[in-house]
């Protein structure tokens, strides 16, 4: 099959959208109360390290995605098992991301529309995008990212103009000391959203100018982290700590407060646009990662799997949780411990160690 090419700018925009994705919908680091922005800023620092780590793995075994790296390291049989686990992981994450979005839509815009329908329409689109290939996805992000950035700036300006921002709300800074904030950064923010960049191990090989790709993904993480920090600052200063913590969708609640001269009111739709795009990108990247895994296992082009897998995601986005409380609790307690940590850091970490060990052995052999 032909090799797909992504430019560096496309990598950048993909990273930004991917990271903003569902994290802006449900809000990250809310447990840190009014220090959420500090937690996010610290998390972004950690995000740099994470991206560097994933990039390093990809560099060690060039031109290969994570499944091929597994094959290089572990051999055929274990690879199939690992790949299946990763496919499950990615499909599960895609389902969760889509569910986030469904909850947002049905709580805020269309309460009477069956959620199954929202999910199905979104997933048909996503399946179609993946059927056309990752390049198409990348071009979508390239086109829409300026809008997202623009809307963020607009939202900030409008909020300031409508006078709802009270900067005093961020005080007292670090009231409980550094420890509670650190507790939020690890493992919560590290695994979600930054650790989910593990999916980019499948995208890295497609990038044409590999020698610059690290720089661009770092910039992407920086911009996305900046936007997330900004959005948490906006929510805290406009809503106050207490309301922020009780909002199911903080940024949406913020947008509802915009009112400039009784003329520009309620920026809900703009925020939903940002969120919808982020969700679309994030879900599609996970879906792509999963199809790539199946491609590796079954030795068929990944496009064949796109629509069927999308349908599976659509089914499981409904089944993934019974209600919103179940969804949130699962995401906060179980997923980081049992899925994120092993799949994002455990397996890649071990793999990296083995690769380094193998390389050293090879060098020693050559010397002899």
């Amino acid at each position, binding site marked *: 099959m032909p090799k797909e090419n992504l430019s560096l700018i496309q990598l950048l925009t993909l990273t930004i959208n991917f990271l903003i994705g569902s994290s802006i919908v449900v809000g990250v680091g809310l447990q840190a109360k009014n220090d959420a922005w500090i937690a996010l800023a610290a998390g972004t620092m950690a995000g740099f390290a994470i991206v560097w780590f994933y990039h390093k793995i990809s560099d060690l075994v060039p031109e290969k995605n994570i499944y091929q790296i597994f094959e290089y390291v572990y051999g055929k049989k274990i690879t199939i098992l690992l790949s299946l686990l990763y496919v499950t992981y990615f499909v599960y994450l895609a389902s969760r991301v889509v569910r986030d979005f469904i909850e947002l839509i049905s709580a805020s815009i269309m309460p009477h*529309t069956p959620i199954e329908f929202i999910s199905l329409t979104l997933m048909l689109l996503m399946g179609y995008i993946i059927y056309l290939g990752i390049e198409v996805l990348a071009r979508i992000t390239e086109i829409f990212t300026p809008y997202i950035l623009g809307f963020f700036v607009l939202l900030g300006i409008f909020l300031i103009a409508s006078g709802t921002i009270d900067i005093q709300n961020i*005080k007292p800074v670090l009231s409980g000391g550094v420890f509670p904030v650190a507790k939020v950064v690890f493992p919560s923010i590290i695994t979600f959203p930054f650790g989910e960049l593990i999916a980019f191990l499948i995208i890295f090989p497609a990038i044409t100018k590999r020698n610059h790709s690290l720089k661009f993904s770092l910039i992407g993480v920086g911009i996305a982290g900046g936007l997330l920090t900004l959005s948490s600052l906006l929510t805290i200063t406009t809503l106050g700590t207490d309301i922020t913590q009780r909002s199911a969708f903080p940024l949406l609640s913020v947008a509802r407060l915009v009112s400039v001269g009784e003329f520009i009111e309620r920026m809900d739709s703009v925020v939903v646009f940002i969120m919808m795009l982020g969700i679309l990108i994030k879900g599609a990247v996970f879906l792509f990662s999963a199809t790539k895994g199946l491609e590796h296992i079954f030795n068929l082009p990944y496009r064949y799997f796109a629509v069927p897998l999308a349908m599976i995601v659509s089914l499981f986005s409904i089944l993934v949780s019974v209600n919103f409380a179940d969804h949130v609790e699962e995401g906060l307690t179980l997923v980081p411990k049992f899925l994120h940590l092993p799949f994002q850091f455990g397996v890649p970490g071990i793999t990296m160690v083995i690769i380094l060990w193998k390389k050293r052995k090879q060098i020693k052999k050559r010397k002899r």
Partner: protein
Amino acid sequence: MKKILLAPMLIMVLCLSGCWDYRELADVTVVTGIAVDKTQNNKYKLTVEGINAQELNNRTAAGYAPSIVYSLSGNSIAELTQKMNIGFSRNLIYSHMRILIISETAAREGITEFIDFLERDREIRDDFRLIISRRTSAAQILKTTYPFQKSSSLKLFKQMDSFRRNWGGNPSVQLNDVVNALTSPAVQPVMEAVTIQGKASKGPSVENMKKVTPDALVVLDSLGIFREGKLIGFLPLNDSRYYVWLRGKLDHTAFSIECRKQNNNFITLRAYNNKSKITGHLEDGKAAFKVKLQLEGFLDSNHCGKDLNKVETYKEYEKLAEKYIEKEMKLSINKVQKKYKIDVYGFGEYLYRNDYKNFKTVEHNWDNVFKNAKVEVDAKVKLRRTALRTKSFISETKAKH
């Protein structure tokens, strides 16, 4: 293959219009205000004002009632809003709600229960005003007509906005302000109160709009103070202005200040650029605050007959105004401290934000600490100009005699 796919996709397109949440404009009545009362049998009585859009437009108005007000009793506001079609014909849309009126009796028993619904519901925005109806039922306020805005809720909304801009007597409380105050450890919520002047029974008619002095008129009355979500008393409008100032929401206002040694002669200071700053500290469980007030203003009337061409006079008047404002502000704060014993101004909030560790020790009985807190007021008045005249003609006429 592609042609086969086309058919289901076209069918999908038909469904994409979001039929489930679709409402025709002709099928909708816009709610501009709701009122909550207490009844004996049920928990609440909800009154809703749905406007008759045709009457609000001067061209299409035919002289019918501008809005329809309907009440229903039940145990939860959330259910009642969906049940209103017992009386109304169309779907009610609550997103353009302008005011929420709570009757005095309902507020005395607690507001927390239905505030939850208002905050949670997706349709209701945060941009409406919360008001208490004093000495009359909340429904009565909604029913009282007024010639300009016709709908009483639109009238009240506009009225409060104008009043806040010109004199600053009401804080224009919104939902988030109340919720933030209710959950904050250091500040208590307030709401402005309105009442009906005249014969309340004559309010709900088109005739009321046809008189030069309406039989019934909704007027702003005072500021309701809450403790733990329950109404405990009212502050007069004059003190309410000082509250607004301390909360930093005062735009413009006017003070009449008695001249020195001349009883019953006043100068009027029109103030703009009003600023307030609270600082303070906590020691051994005793709080002391310093309030810094700052305003710029111009002289709008001068009964005192001093020569306004002189810098000297400006200085004197500034001093007078500073003293007056300091005294009044202090009185106002002391009144709240002594009579209601709660912190509505946000003094505690200042400590919470800037001296978190010390504040933690007194958080549980902050209102007690506030009751005994020492408050100093320091006003800075800058008199800039004296409108269109310099000397007052009064001094000239006096000179003749």
